[in-house]
């Protein structure tokens, strides 16, 4: 169990410096408090980059009316512009997250900051609508880095215990930026022009980019688990499709992504609507709007701060509780927005605005904390960027359905977002059930893989296949319960059990035909959990299924051809292998051009084994070789298996009949009702009457050398 409430040993501190006496010291103290004593430099750097990027975003929001007028856009077109920008930028989010999990993140951070700064500057110079769109896209891309890479870096710089407050602090930079940003931008715009507000931004951003080059090195997962360093050094990065599959397999993430859709619809239009609302209904000029939005951002900041602390308390009650908190805060935004949107006078509207921002601020820390907890460490960056896609989907939905409303009546436009706040809140509230199990799973996979790597480096005899704690369900019915299996390189293992024990399911899970809900599978040193059958085949893991293993409408020759084509071995090797198969099984040579459907049962099994033979596997898993076949035929087939084994293939033999398995293998695993009941030498198995009671066993005790 993970205990997130454990605090590090108390550090005796001197009295914290007062803000007015020693501002720098006070600031440093604030940051160090957020990190619970760890080095604050990374947080500071990322904080300020985010801070200045937020300036730009806030400026674009508060100056919406001026920009709108400068380019002659309607409300709807303006929001469409934002949406388009988001779509394209967030379309880059997923590849970015993907590369974020592969490339050095420090470099990405610096590059992102530089790009953001340059395009901010360019926005101020934009001569036409098209140029504006392009420059916003460029800036958006740079800012995107903040949203995706920063949290991932922070997760690795700082311990889980410190994460809620660290995330809160980092998010505060956005809040501070959205306080200072509108104020400064609004005033500058009021004094000169909206363009100047953008031009000045490049200076601080580039400065922060330079500082960011001094960030210390970091390893993925290092704060979760000491051994993560071992893993990261060794592993291949996760392909995009598999990463997405890993993410979507986490139940909590599915709920959070669904909530993202609602949040996208609820929140994104507001960034344009709110300034438009105040300008149109209450005729506020840009400077005053700046102050207004700044005040709102202050309220949000307070909310985020409180939320960071509240999250720490709630998480002690249960890992899923923060999601409830996030849900409630979203729910609460609705009424506040209602007040603001239909306020009869400015005062009430401002009150509503402040309340909405305050409550909305509560949502970030718990949401991000939970997302970081349940996402597997290897795909954490992808998780954050993939989620953003759902935001955009929500916005587009909103625009299609409700987009035209704001043009007619901005109050109604604001109001139209309210139902989505409720929907988002309900979704998050409902999704809290799975957090605990998902977090445990994410942590345990990390621990397991590290442990297995360590064991592999230390062990004299390497295991070709390691299965740990695998759970498999068919729909709501669980069929495998925490199965552990180890196959040493070069051995033949017998997997025994009656009907329904789960043997075939286990083989299918190892191959990847059936999804695994818990546990890990390592093949030849690589984590293949969640890999597709085609991919594990390419690594050398071949399964010969029981029963129908041939393609009936293809000829024998074509059946063998399929095995050849997919294995992509050099042609001469393959031709030799094919000849060998035909030598081993003369019956196949006789029927070479006939459709495989006319073969007898035994011949079909020969063909299946022949297919496996051609693909020269590292590990061969055979499911029920002897089923329905005469003993003479079985003997012939077993001879081929022995031959394969002699040439270096490890074998897992699944059988119901103990007899067949025992003639070949030295080690046996016995399964019953989805669990492993026995692992060890086959001789020992025969002594275990209690296990063999339910199995075909008569005759086994009379085998030579068995007792």
């Amino acid at each position, binding site marked *: 169990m993970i205990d997130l409430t454990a605090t590090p040993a108390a550090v005796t501190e001197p009295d914290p410096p007062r803000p007015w006496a020693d501002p720098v010291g006070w600031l440093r103290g604030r940051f160090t408090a957020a990190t619970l004593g760890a080095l604050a430099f990374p947080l500071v750097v990322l904080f300020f980059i985010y801070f200045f990027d937020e300036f730009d975003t806030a400026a674009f929001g508060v100056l919406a009316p001026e920009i709108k007028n400068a380019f002659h856009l309607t409300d709807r077109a303006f929001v469409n512009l934002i949406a388009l920008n988001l779509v394209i930028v967030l379309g880059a989010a997923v590849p970015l997250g993907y590369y974020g999990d592969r490339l050095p993140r420090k470099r990405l951070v610096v590059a992102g900051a530089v790009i953001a700064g340059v395009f901010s500057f360019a926005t101020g110079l934009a001569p036409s609508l098209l140029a504006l769109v392009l420059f916003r896209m460029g800036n958006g891309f740079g800012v995107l880095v903040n949203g995706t890479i920063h949290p991932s870096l922070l997760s690795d710089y700082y311990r889980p215990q410190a994460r809620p407050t660290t995330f809160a602090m980092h998010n505060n930079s956005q809040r501070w930026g959205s306080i200072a940003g509108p104020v400064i931008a609004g005033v500058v715009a009021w004094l000169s022009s909206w363009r100047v507000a953008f031009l000045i931004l490049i200076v601080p951003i580039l400065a922060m980019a330079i500082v960011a080059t001094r960030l210390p090195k970091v390893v993925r997962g290092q704060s979760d688990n000491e051994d993560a360093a071992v893993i990261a050094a060794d592993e291949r990065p996760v392909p995009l499709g598999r990463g997405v599959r890993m993410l979507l397999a986490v139940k909590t993430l599915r709920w959070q992504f669904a909530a993202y859709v609602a949040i996208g619809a609820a929140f994104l239009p507001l960034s344009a609507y709110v300034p438009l609302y105040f300008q149109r209904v209450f005729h506020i000029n840009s400077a005053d709007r700046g102050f207004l939005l700044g005040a709102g951002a202050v309220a949000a900041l307070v909310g985020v701060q409180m939320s960071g602390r509240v999250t720490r308390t709630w998480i002690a009650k249960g890992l899923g509780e923060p999601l409830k908190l996030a849900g409630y805060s979203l729910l609460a935004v609705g009424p506040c927005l209602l007040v603001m949107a239909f306020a009869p006078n400015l005062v009430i509207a401002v009150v509503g605005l402040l309340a909405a921002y305050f409550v909305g601020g509560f949502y970030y820390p718990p949401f991000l904390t939970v997302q970081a907890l349940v996402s597997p460490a290897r795909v954490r960056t992808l998780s954050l960027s993939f989620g953003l896609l759902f935001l955009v989907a929500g916005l587009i939905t909103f625009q299609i359905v409700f987009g035209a409303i704001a043009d007619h009546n901005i109050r109604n436009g604001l109001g139209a977002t309210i139902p989505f706040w409720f929907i988002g809140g309900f979704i998050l509230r409902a999704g809290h059930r799975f957090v605990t199990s998902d977090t445990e799973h994410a942590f345990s996979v990390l621990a397991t893989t590290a442990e297995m790597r360590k064991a592999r480096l230390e062990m004299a005899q390497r295991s070709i296949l390691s299965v740990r704690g695998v759970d498999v369900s068919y729909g709501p019915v669980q069929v495998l319960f925490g199965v552990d299996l180890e196959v040493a390189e070069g051995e033949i293992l017998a997997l025994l059990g009656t009907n329904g024990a789960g043997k075939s399911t286990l083989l299918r899970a190892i191959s990847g035909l059936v999804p695994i809900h818990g546990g890990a599978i390592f093949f030849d040193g690589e984590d293949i959990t969640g890999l597709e059958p085609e991919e594990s*085949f390419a690594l050398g893991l*071949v*399964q010969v299924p029981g029963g129908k293993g041939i393609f*009936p409408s293809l000829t024998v020759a*074509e059946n063998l051809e*399929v095995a050849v084509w997919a294995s992509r071995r050099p042609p001469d090797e393959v031709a030799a292998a094919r000849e060998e198969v035909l030598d081993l099984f003369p019956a196949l040579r006789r029927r070479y051009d006939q459709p495989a459907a006319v073969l007898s049962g035994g011949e079909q099994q020969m063909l299946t084994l022949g297919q496996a033979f051609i693909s020269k596997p590292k590990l061969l898993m055979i499911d029920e070789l002897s089923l329905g076949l005469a003993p003479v035929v079985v003997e012939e087939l077993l001879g081929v298996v022995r031959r394969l084994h002699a040439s270096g293939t490890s074998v897992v033999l699944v059988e119901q009949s103990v007899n067949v398995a025992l003639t070949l293998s030295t080690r046996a695993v016995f399964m019953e009702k989805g669990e492993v009941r026995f692992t060890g030498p086959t001789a020992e198995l025969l002594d275990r009457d209690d296990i063999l009671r*339910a199995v075909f066993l*008569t005759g086994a005790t009379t085998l030579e050398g068995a007792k």
Partner: protein
Amino acid sequence: MLKRAALGAGVFLTGFVAIVLVGKGVGGYLPNFMSSVVPNGIFLQGLVLGALNGLLAIGLVLIYRTNRIINFAQGELGAFAATLAAELVQRYRVPFYAAVAVGLVAAVLSSALIEFAIIRRFTKAPRLILTVVTIGVAQILGAVELAIPALLNKNAKMQTGFQTPLSFGFNYGGVQFRGDHIVVMIITPVVIAGLVWFMRRTGYGLAARAAADDRDRARLLGVPVKRVSLIVWSIAGGLSALTAVLSAPITGFQFGALGGYTLLAYALGAAVIGRFESLPITFGAALLISLAQQVLFFGTGHSGPDFGLVFAVILVALLIQRRRTGRLETGASTWQAVEEVRPVPRELRRLPEVRYGRWGLAGLALALGVVVPFVLTPSRTSLATDILIYAMVGISLVILTGWGGHLSFGQWALAGVGGLVAGHIAASSNPQDFFVTLLIAGAAGAAAALLIGIPALRIQGLFLGVTTLAFAVAAGNWIFSFGLFNVPGAIQRPLMFGVWDVSNERSFYLLILAFLVVTLVVARNLRNARMGRVLVAMRDNEKAAQSLGVPRVRTKLAAFAASGFIAAVAGALYAYHQQQLTPERFPADLSVFLFSMIVIGGMGSTTGAVLGAIVIRGIQYFLPYEFSLLGTGFGVVLLLLFFPGGLGQLFYMARDALLRTVAERRGVLVPSLVADRKADTVELDDTAVARAAADLTEHAPEPELVTTGGQS
């Protein structure tokens, strides 16, 4: 191999000669049937059109082999390529071949996208669901096709012509041919040969055939089945686009959903003869079918009998084909759509809140139904009546397909039988009593359904669907032109029981509502009686049911008869509703649409049927055409992605959740409600549940010794 090829060629030539002989020889000698001798040019035209149909049919076969579904979007996949090319050529003066290339590429890419984004999500779904999804995809593509002119140029309408630069022509046997025809005759065999070569000789073709045989096994051997599926769909899209582009100059724009399912019916006929397996046989069959169609069309002088021909061809081909197990769709289990709808558990049925809840819900629904005509305008009320009638036909479909397991893409045609017969009687000079008319119409429908039911004894699954679709096409285009179905004039609405005048919309709506309620009650009783149980038993496991003494033939035919009766009565009511009726009111695509409507609503229950009718028809009526196409198309795809049981599944999930809370509150253990929940989400505490569980584990029976036979 060579022997089979020679045999095939021989059969083809025989067929060809036979058709020519019919055209030449019989024509002119049977004035009532074929009034003219067919000139030679028609034969050539038949071959040309047959080549085009052949391309479509081959696309169908390819998709069937890869995904085991009937791809209703086959025509649409490429249709917009032709539209796009036409727009580019006509409006933007793009060079012809460049425009065609763009169209082809667009079709191929969009087919790949459809496979990736939609089809792939349904890999594990029952084949019927995916087939219905392709209906939705066809609608989406149809909407896109309609929108292309508007997208490129704000106020444009669709093109009507498609000019090709091939301007030379020639005259043969009395028919004027253009370069377009020649192009078809040259390109098509080349394409077919290329495809055959691809399937037989290349790695990907081999992989496609292996994956079609056994997808999981292919994956275990490292075959990239996803990529293969993508390639096959891209090829199918390209074929469809080629068909559209080649046929547009000759026949105009009339493919797929926008053109009814007539073209698809021809292609299906050819595919059926080819057993959805052999490309050359399919192509040859397509040639012969189109040839025969042209001969019939020209010889008889009007369109109609040719549709009957297609239906007959499909019927005969399916009946005489030998069943090869494991290759063709036989069992109902491969398409069975949904979890069976469970009744309210016995343990809870007596509880007052459940009883009041059920009656309350029914009462509420009835009240809502009754209120409708009082709040809507008469024209809207008329639309609502329409929806009710659709719901009735939908219920007949639930009986036949949902409970009986017989796919029917021709239900609206059965309604047409009833409607036209009723109209024929009611508009004649001697109209009968209202209920007598309904009865006669119902009997006609039952008889027609029995006629389809007889082949259903041998044909099952998707192929029965194909047969019924062919029936619907034949009915709409030919059978309904018979004298029996002629509605000479206007139909008067009756004076019910001598006192109630239903000629105004409001009263008629209430009358139909009453009929719907009666139908619902009848269906429910049918389901709860022996008939219902026997139907479902036959659907789930025919052999087991037979071994328990259930008479196969009688049960199946009874299902068809009951379903046909209800559909026909609904059709008769439709006749009284519309008061004017022509065969055009009963096209085949409405049958297909009705089917998808019921799948969306939920095939397993009558509630689902009513929900489906209300929602889908509602969307259709209250949105403009393009948006309704888009809406229903996306609706089908999205809903079936998450809820294969349709809206009914949502409804019953909510009902079960409520029942669970009731059970928890009352402390009643209801195994059938919690059995589908994973253990960790069910709270066990000091209730009867925990005690019961503890009891069971304490007294677990000893495991039995199982020995092989023969040993002591």
